[in-house]
């Protein structure tokens, strides 16, 4: 018998859709994974086709994180769920002061999802991962019946390695510390909202979705030892990030609205929607809290990096048993910036 192997037809990426059989462990699943995911992520760990990736030893403490991505719409100005799922998880590693090393990706796909969209998302993830130098080394694919998901959900996890001298945590803010943000607030949320069916407006704002570990590396090099806390102000925006830190460090904040960068289009979109940019999500910005005397050095390092060129020192940490985030308004009065309590739009990340 000559070795008559089945002739593998390529997935019909243009017209095909994910079927239930692509999730049930047979040849169809193997083909989907190979033709779309392995092709896009392209590395030997994946090609070895094991259920786990064997990696090199990491020199230093380990940092681990995970996020689920359910953003709607899946494609938005400045990014898509694929690149977002790479950036967001890299950023959570970076916010711990660590260097992100490896990512995993778990896909939950709705029956009927077009291959073309899945490939576009996978390609975008692959590009984001390569650009960041953080490979996706292992993954998983599940398919659920039509109506049991919303296109595709992605959960990524990441591991990184933490230099000895760095110890960041949200309970480490101390009165007197400086508060810095790396750039304008609210871009991601406004970019998403501009594509929501029931809000539809047009605005030339791109999501700021970006990997922050390079910026963080420069910040650590400049003033690592004096960093106390870093956060990426994602869901709930700057307001949520500061309130969480205030609560966990049992401090308050005194910030100035005029010092917080907000793009005019973002401000305008927020006016339209009755939102406050301080509550709107970012995906490529960080807030850093550091010892006061290091603030200028840190700010200079941030501004020297492309992702921090609009960095700004927005205020400082104060003693406050109420854990208020107090803000001098641009108008000249005072207010607090409380936790979010109105409706925020869901599925922003």
């Amino acid at each position, binding site marked *: 018998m000559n070795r008559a192997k089945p002739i593998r037809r390529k997935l019909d990426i243009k017209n095909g859709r994910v079927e239930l059989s692509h999730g049930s462990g047979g040849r169809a699943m193997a083909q989907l994974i190979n033709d779309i995911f392995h092709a896009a992520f392209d590395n030997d760990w994946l090609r070895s086709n094991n259920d786990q990736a064997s990696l090199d030893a990491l020199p230093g403490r380990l940092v681990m994180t995970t996020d689920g991505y359910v953003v709607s719409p899946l494609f938005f100005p400045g990014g898509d769920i694929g690149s977002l799922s790479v950036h967001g998880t890299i950023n959570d590693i970076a916010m711990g002061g660590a260097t992100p090393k490896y990512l995993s990706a778990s896909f939950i796909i709705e029956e009927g999802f077009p291959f073309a969209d899945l490939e576009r998302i996978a390609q975008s993830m692959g590009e984001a991962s390569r650009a960041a130098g953080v490979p996706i080394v292992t993954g998983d694919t599940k398919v659920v019946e039509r109506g049991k998901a919303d296109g595709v959900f992605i959960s990524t996890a990441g591991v990184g390695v933490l230099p000895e001298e760095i110890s960041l945590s949200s309970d480490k803010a101390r009165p007197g510390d400086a508060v810095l943000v790396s750039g304008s607030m609210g871009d991601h949320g406004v970019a998403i909202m501009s594509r929501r069916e*029931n*809000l539809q407006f047009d605005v030339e704002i791109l999501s700021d979705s970006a990997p922050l570990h390079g910026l963080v590396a420069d910040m650590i090099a400049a003033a690592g030892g004096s960093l106390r806390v870093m956060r990426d102000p994602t869901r709930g925006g700057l307001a949520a990030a500061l309130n969480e830190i205030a609560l966990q460090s049992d401090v308050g904040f005194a910030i100035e609205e*005029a010092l917080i960068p907000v793009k*005019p289009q973002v*401000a*305008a979109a927020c*006016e339209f929607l009755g939102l*406050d940019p301080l509550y709107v999500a970012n995906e490529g910005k960080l807030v850093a809290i550091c010892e006061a005397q290091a603030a200028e050095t840190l700010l200079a390092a941030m501004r020297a990096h492309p992702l921090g060129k609009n960095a700004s020192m927005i205020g400082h940490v104060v003693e406050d048993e*109420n854990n*208020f985030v*107090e803000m*001098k*308004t*641009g*108008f*000249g*009065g*005072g*207010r*607090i910036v*409380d936790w979010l*309590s*109105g*409706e925020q739009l869901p599925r922003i990340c």
Partner: protein
Amino acid sequence: MKYVDEYRDPALAKGLAAAIAAEAEAGRTYRFMEFCGGHTHAISRYGVEDMLPANVRMIHGPGCPVCVLPVGRIDDAIRLAARPDVTLCTYADLMRVPASNGASLLKARAAGADIRMVYSTLDALRIARSEPRREVVFFAIGFETTTPPTALAVRQAKAEGCANFSVFCNHVLTPVAMRAILAGEEEGVPPLDGIVGPAHVSTVIGSRPYEFVATEYHKPVVISGFEPLDVMQSILMLVHQLNQNRCEIENQYARAVVPQGNARALEAIAEVFELRDSFEWRGLGAVAKSALRLRDAFAAFDAERRFEIETKAAADNPACECGAILRGAKRPMDCKLFGTLCTPETPMGSCMVSSEGSCAAHYAYGRFRDRARTQKEGVLQ
């Protein structure tokens, strides 16, 4: 942002604050009610209170349609939404408002009701068109500002023969409520000295409907824009009138309000709606001729008739001080529940349910002032 940024200028704000301080006579207290929740929100968000002298005091009025909506009407909306054939469309503001027994539209949605947040009546009508097998009910709420969009949607639905669209009408009227406040002024509570009138309502109804405030109650009104400098300018105008012993209806928002209002909008309202005999306002009680319902000609689009809604009264928490707060007799921090049992996540009374309510605005923006206040209590009161 043209017509916005210039009214938020901090340098002008400083000057205006000084002007108000200079104009306000020492030894005299000025108690002004900003009727509208939009003003309450602006005052809180921009910190306008910090820029007023101690003897100019702002009382937050009942001008938030979400806050004054009686719990029974939310119960009605939840019952409607629970019908398997109904899709309820609502402005997002209403989603979290607590109804009876801990319910809310948000919880009803979680429990399976088809409830959609819309930005505009246009969206609700679009949903009705694209899902002809669903009964699409728009949960209409708002003052005169928000009423014309509802009227236009109903008119449009009728013109199109859109048979599956209806409106659960909760539109209420500003001047009537203002009269109720003024008529209810109590002994022992210092009376209001003037009123900051809502400019967006007046884009529709004009400034004339407020004349009774001057003629009958002898208090000045300034129709005021919603930017913080608009409000401060209006306050200055009020102080000025009082100092001159005038009580007139002045229009600070002349850039978009004319005395007679918007004829097209008023026509649309008049065509579609008629006065209810009486309507319950949370915090104020039943107020005669204070709300609208659909006319008989539009009965087919009236969810109250279509679904035979009969609103049941639901009692508010007796410890809630909203009534007194709305009348200017108390402030949020005078309420025992404020900030402990009553918070924006767990509102116990009407003033806490929307960010435009006086308790909610104070909670979200102003609580830090309570520190100062407790230190120098008595100075302000």
